C-alpha cells in the first residue's frame, strides 16, 4: 500500500464507520447479556473508525517510496460500464431483452478499445438473438422479451 492509499483508505474507513454509527443511532444497543439490534453494528462501526485512524497514523509515519505512482481513476471505463449496467436495468422492462442487449453491446464502441463497426454490429445482433434463445427459450427465465 502506498502512502497516498493509506491516507485515502484511512479516511474511507473513518467515514464508513461514522456513517454506520449515524445510521444506527436509533437502534437499541442493550447490554452484553441482552443485546439489542444495535449492539454488533455499533461495535463494528467503532472498529471501522479505529482501523481508519490506525491507517492514518501509519500513513503519517511512513515516507512515500520514490517510485510511488499517484492514484488515478480511469473515468472513461468507469462511466461507460456503469452507464451500460444502469442502462440495462432501465431499458429491460421497456424494450425487452434483445433490444437492450443489442444497445448495450453497441455501447462498447465508446470503450476506447480497437473495434470494427461491421464486426461490432454483427456481434450486437448475434448477442441479442443468442441471449434471448439461451435465457428466455432454453432456460425459461421470466425475462421481458418484447417492447412494452
Amino acid at each position, binding site marked *: *500500500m502506498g502512502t497516498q492509499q*493509506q491516507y*485515502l*483508505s484511512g479516511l*474511507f*474507513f473513518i467515514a*464508513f464507520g461514522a456513517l*454506520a454509527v449515524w*445510521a444506527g443511532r436509533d*437502534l437499541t444497543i442493550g*447490554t*452484553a*447479556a*441482552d*443485546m439489542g*439490534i*444495535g449492539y*454488533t*453494528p455499533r461495535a463494528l*462501526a467503532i*472498529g*471501522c473508525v479505529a*482501523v481508519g485512524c*490506525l*491507517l492514518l497514523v*501509519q500513513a503519517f509515519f511512513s515516507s512515500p517510496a520514490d517510485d510511488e505512482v499517484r*492514484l*488515478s*481513476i*480511469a473515468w*472513461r*471505463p*468507469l462511466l461507460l*460500464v*456503469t452507464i*451500460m*449496467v*444502469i442502462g*440495462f*436495468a*432501465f431499458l*429491460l*422492462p421497456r424494450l425487452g*431483452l434483445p433490444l437492450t442487449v443489442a444497445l*448495450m*453491446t453497441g455501447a*462498447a*464502441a465508446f*470503450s476506447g*478499445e*480497437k*473495434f470494427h463497426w461491421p*464486426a461490432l454490429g454483427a*456481434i450486437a445482433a448475434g*448477442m441479442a438473438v443468442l*441471449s434471448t434463445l439461451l*435465457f428466455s427459450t432454453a*432456460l425459461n*427465465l*421470466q425475462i421481458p422479451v418484447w417492447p412494452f
Partner: protein
Amino acid sequence: MDLFSNLALGFSVALTLKNLFYCFAGALFGTLIGVLPGIGPLATIAMLLPITFHLEPTGALIMLAGIFYGAQYGGSTTAILVNLPGESSSVVTALDGYQMARQGRAGVALATAALASFFAGCVATIVIAIAAPALSRMALLFGPPEFTALMVMGLIAAVVLASGSIVASIGMVMVGMLLGLIGTDVTTGEQRFVFGIRQIYDGIDFVVVAMGLFGVAEIIANLADRHTRELPSGKITRLMPTKEDVIQAAPATVRGTLLGSILGVLPGGGALVSSFASYSLEKRLAKDPSRFGKGAIEGVAGPEAANNAGAQASFIPMLALGIPPNAVMALMIAAMTIHGITPGPKFLTDQPTLFWGMVVSMWIGNMILVILNLPLVGIWVKLLKIPYAYLFPAILVFCCVGVYSINYRVFDVFLMAGFGVFGYFLRRIGCEPAPMVLGFILGPMVEEQFRRTLLLSDGDFSIFLTRPLSAALIGVTVALLLMMALPSLRKGREEAFREQD
C-alpha cells in the same frame, strides 16, 4: 465399510444420465467463462448461477461444482497461454507456465496442469469423503462460543493469508459484516440500515455484492489496464509430456496435492495459499532453483495440483460446518441457499444422497475436465484472441441477466452497478474486496452465535476463555495476529506474495 457404501450411494446418484449431463455441462460452461481473461472463479460462478435455477437441488449442486472446477481450470489455461491469471491462485502458474508457452511448450504445460489437477482432484475427493463426516461429528460438540471463536479465527486467518495490508483487510472484513447486517434481524424481526428501501428488507443478496465487486469492478479495471494483454502466439502442436517431463513433474504433483489438501481445510485457506506454498516449496527443493521463472515444469505441476486440491478441500469446512473458508465457498453457500439447501453439521446426515452424490460428481467432474480440455485447447486459444471490445459487453450482459433473474427485479441490477463502482474505488485505494465478501456472509452468523454466547454466560466475556475448545481457537487467532506484528515474519509474508509482481 461405511465409506464404501457411502461412495457407492454417491456413484448411484452421480452416474445417472441426467446428473452426468449436468456435471459435464457445468464443467464445460465453467471452463468457457473461466478462460476469458480477467474473470476468476468467483465471477464465473456468479455469472452462471442462473443456468442452475430451474434444476432440482441435486442436479443444481452437481452442476455448480462442475462450474467451480471448470472455472478453476479455465483460469490456469489463461495464465499459461496469455500470462493473464484470471484470479490470484493461478498467478504462480503464469510464472513458469507462460515461459513454457513462449518456448513452444504451451501444449505440454496445459497437459501437465490438467493431469496434475486431475491427480490432486482424485486425492482431494477421498479426503473430503473421509474428513467431512468426521468434522461434522466434531461440530456437534460445538456450542455458540466455539462457533463464534471459529468464525473469528477464520476471518483473521483469511486476512493474514491474503495479500495486501492487514489493517486495511481487517477493516474490509468489518465493512463487509456491517453490509451483511442490513435488513431484518433474524432474532428480533426488527429492521436496521434499510433506509426505507423496501427491496432490502430481506438484506442485500450476496450474489449482487459478489457480481458487482468481482464482475463489474473487474471489467472496469481491465478496460483501464490496457497494456497487459498479450495474444497467444503460434499453434499448439504437442500435448504429451516427455518421459523426462514426467519424472520432474510427478513428485511435485504429489507434494502439491498433499500441501493443498492440508492448507485447503484451514479457515482462510484454499486455492490461493496452497499454490503459493507449493511454488516456494518446489523452488526450495529444486537442485537448480534458477530454472524457476524460466519454464520449470515443476513450477506448473506443483502449484496446479496444490490449487486444485486446496480449492476442493475448502469444501470440507463449508459442507461440514456451514462456515465458508474463503470468498468462493461463501458464494457456494449462497448458491446452495437459493436451492433451499443449508450446509452444516446436519447436511450430511439429513441429505446423504445429496452429499455423497456431490462428492462423487467432483471426481467425475475432474475426469471430464481432462477429457474435455486437452482436445478443446484450440478452441480456448481462439476464444482468447477475441478483442476485448467484443468480449466485455457479452460478459456484462451475463452479469446483468444473472443478477436480474435471482428475484426478477431491476433494483438488483442498479445495486450491482453501485457495488461495481464501490469495488473499483476500493481497489484503487488498495483495499482487497475478498475479505469484505467473506465478512458479508459471516457477519449475520457471527452476530447470532455471539449473541447466544453472551446470553448463555449472562454477559460475561470470559466464557470464550473458560471453555477449552473456544479458548484454543481464540489462542490461535491471537497467535496469528501477534505473528504478523513481528517484523521478521511480516517480511516473510511480504516476500511470499512478492512473486506476484
